[in-house]
């Protein structure tokens, strides 16, 4: 009997696992497919919708998951979650020698609370802990151009698999914010349900025994309903204070972290010269929070110019978030492509149509005339002028200086076409710099 009950679950899990891989690996002709996976997660959708103050069509999927999960405890974890499937099997193969963590508090709940509170302040602090993001991250490995990128994209899932192998289901049971949120939804639904059921019963009893008198003022009826809803009573009395306190502290912590992270992000942006985000990126103060490090954009980029940041560009708060680097031969942000903006599940990269993307300013190209071959009179080079898809670079003759320079006009969006063709080495004479308000 147990066997029969377990086999279909395994089958469903396996199917969902394969489905998740198909979604992330863009086998489907549908460019937005990868983001559908993360948008199954109510944690991601709820937090990002609150943070971005907008609700997209993709919310529907998460809503369904949320509703079902609130009725069937950890239904998502047990059946749909590809990370859960992977970790469950790792656990079976693993050491399972220790279960010290079973006494661990339900961290996932606090992570979820913290993140939701942060989201209210525009910065969903720990959104990157979503298991679906962690699952999709390593799939960008085929677009990784260096060992550091390989390490970064595989870090999350690697840690989870490793930890599960050694410690068992610590992550799934205690830490995962998605399961924490599911638990919260479940108990909220249950409490609500019991209350509704109790009040309906009470109303029926009141009509029967008390002739329609309001039940709430009747001490006896309160006792009756109380007896009918032991869960409500238990929740209300047993650890009422503790839970409330923890939720309060998590919420307050999330809010403080969000405010701090946004200030830090804005400061970082003011200071940075080389920080370039993919097209459609929300302002830097919120980007580090909204971005969940799912690496969908890294995976989507055909020219492999999007890399997970090592922290070099945007510090610890921006660790693993995507940055653009024009460090490969002749590869720049193509004027024919908007793939990265289409796959972001949280709106950290706004979905942009191609024409909109070609107007999004990634950065600004600036020329160092003490390196430029034309300005130095070394060579008749107009590589940047020829390469620019937006007609933004003109080699201009300056009668006063009696010299010619590449001059960049306002049409420049920082696609990097000029930088990658610039023949000087090791420093490019024309480079894309972080956009500064003029």
């Amino acid at each position, binding site marked *: 009997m147990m066997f029969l009950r377990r086999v279909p679950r395994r089958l469903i899990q396996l199917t969902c696992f394969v489905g998740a891989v198909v979604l992330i690996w863009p086998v489907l002709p549908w460019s937005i497919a990868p983001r559908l996976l993360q948008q199954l997660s109510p944690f991601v959708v709820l937090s990002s919708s609150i943070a971005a103050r907008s609700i997209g069509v993709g919310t529907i999927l998460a809503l369904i998951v949320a509703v079902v999960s609130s009725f069937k405890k950890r239904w998502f974890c047990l059946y749909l979650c590809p990370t859960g499937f992977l970790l469950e099997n790792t656990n079976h193969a693993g050491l399972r020698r220790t279960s010290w963590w079973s006494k661990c508090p339900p961290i996932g709940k606090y992570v979820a609370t913290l993140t939701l509170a942060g989201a209210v302040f525009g910065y969903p602090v720990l959104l990157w802990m979503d298991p679906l993001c962690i699952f999709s991250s390593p799939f960008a490995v085929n677009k990784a151009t260096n060992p550091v990128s390989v390490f970064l994209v595989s870090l999350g899932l690697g840690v989870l698999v490793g930890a599960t192998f050694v410690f068992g289901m610590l992550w799934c049971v205690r830490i995962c914010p998605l399961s924490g949120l599911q638990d919260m939804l479940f108990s909220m639904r249950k409490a609500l349900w019991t209350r509704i059921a109790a009040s309906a019963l009470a109303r029926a009893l009141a009509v029967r025994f008390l002739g329609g008198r309001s039940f709430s003022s009747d001490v006896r009826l309160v006792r009756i309903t109380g007896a009918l809803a032991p869960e409500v009573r238990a929740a209300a009395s047993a650890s009422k204070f503790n839970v409330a306190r923890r939720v309060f502290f998590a919420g307050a912590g999330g809010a403080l972290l969000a405010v701090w992270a946004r200030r830090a992000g804005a400061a970082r942006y003011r200071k940075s*010269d080389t920080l370039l985000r993919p097209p459609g990126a929300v302002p830097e103060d919120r980007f580090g929070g909204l971005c969940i490090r799912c690496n969908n954009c890294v995976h989507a980029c055909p020219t492999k110019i999007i890399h997970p940041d090592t922290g070099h560009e945007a510090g610890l708060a921006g660790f693993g978030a995507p940055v653009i680097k024009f460090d490969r031969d002749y590869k720049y942000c193509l004027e024919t492509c908007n793939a990265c903006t289409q796959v972001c599940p949280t709106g950290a990269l706004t979905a942009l149509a191609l024409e909109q993307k070609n107007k999004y300013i990634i950065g*600004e190209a*600036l*020329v*160092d*005339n*003490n*390196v*430029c*071959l*034309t*300005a*130095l*009179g*070394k*060579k*008749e*080079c*107009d*590589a940047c002028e*020829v*390469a620019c898809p937006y007609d933004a670079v003109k*080699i*201009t*003759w*300056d*009668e006063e*200086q*009696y*010299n*010619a*320079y590449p*001059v*960049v006009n306002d049409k420049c969006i920082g696609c990097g076409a000029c930088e990658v*063709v610039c*023949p*000087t*080495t*090791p*420093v490019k*004479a024309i480079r894309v*710099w972080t956009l500064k308000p*003029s």
Partner: protein
Amino acid sequence: MRSSIAAGGLFAAGSLMPVSSAQANQAGGQSTTQGVHETENRVPATIAGDKVVQPRRELPVLQKTSILVVGGGPAGTAAAFCAKRMGVDVTLVERYGYLGGLATGGLVLGIFPLYDRDKKQVIFGVGEELMKKLDVLKYGIIDRNKAPIYPTIDAEAFKYVLADMVLDSGITTYLDCWGVDAIVDGKGAVRGAVFESKSGRQAILADIVIDCSGDGDIYAAAGAAFEKVKTNIGLISRIGNIDEVDMAIGRGSEDPEHPATGKPSEGRPSKGRVNDFNGHAGNSTPAPHMNWLNMRGPVGDALDITDLTSMELKHRRGTWGNVEKLRQKPGNEQVFLAETAPQLGVRLSRLLDGVKKLTAQEIRSGAKFKDVIGYSGAYANAPEFQIPYGSLVPAKVENVLAAGRCISAEFEVADITRLIPVCWVTGQAAGLAAALCIQDKCKPRNVSVTKLQNLLKEQGAYLG
């Protein structure tokens, strides 16, 4: 030329040093012709009403030749040498007093698009021969076979090499002789060209004329259709004592093996037009302590004498000013302006409407041609590309071929084919094609492409 010296034409109308030569004559007793009173035996231009009219007159025929090459720059000298090698009678006419055109008088010392994208040399043939002659000269050429760094030649060394080759080759050469008109027969076919020089207006009759004038003066005069383009006109200069500046620090370098050692000068550059310029520095040349310095210049009409004059003057003033600015930078105090180029850096003027107009689309897509006569190396964003023979042949006019910067190509393409080594390629092909016309008694457009390609290969040209 010899005859004109014998007739005393060279010094007759006022020697540069009449007094000293007279003294030398008295002292040494050497015989020079002097004091012969003459009048020019021709009718000057007159005024008829409000118009200036040149009376109809017969022109003396200076020379009858099989192949006439107009212009002694990279394309013209390559064409003349290669045609002469085929045992054909060749006459070369050059406007300036030296050979080499922009490669010497223009100080375009960089031999630019020699390599394909894989840093393999794709231009050989006569260009490679010339560079080999420079190889053996001290201070003749540097940075040979160091792709992607282009070689740089010395102008005087190259003048010497060309003079040496012309003197030994038996090519009849006229310098200081400006091709001004085409001679066209009743059927519209070119039969020679008219020249102005100190000897006056003279005609050279030829079976085939190769127009290497750069501006396409001869084919234009003969009535061939062309596209007129205007682009930047600069003036190259050479500056001395520049090697006291460490060129490797913070400056651009194209050589990955010898990258600049420093950081860029100012970190984040300022936006738009900037004044943080540390001064021109140019590129090193074979001559020690000497850099050559390119100038882009403003856009001008290379066929308009007002534009040309204004640029000649302003460019020399501007160059002097820039060198003064450079001298104000610490470490550059001893930098001096060695010379400005005798010739303006005219890039493009006329582009022939040929049998085949080479398009930018074709060179980007790596088009292959059946009548390929050579390659241009990769340059800026363009990959290496084939040059078809059809680009040298005018669409309509007979007996004339174009070589050098004025061949039939779209502007973007011509902006590469105008460069020195590509001019060698088109010059060599035009010279050999003209020689084949003489040998096979055919028109340039009917030349056997197979024969031409075999000849090119025999002479070491690279056809892919």
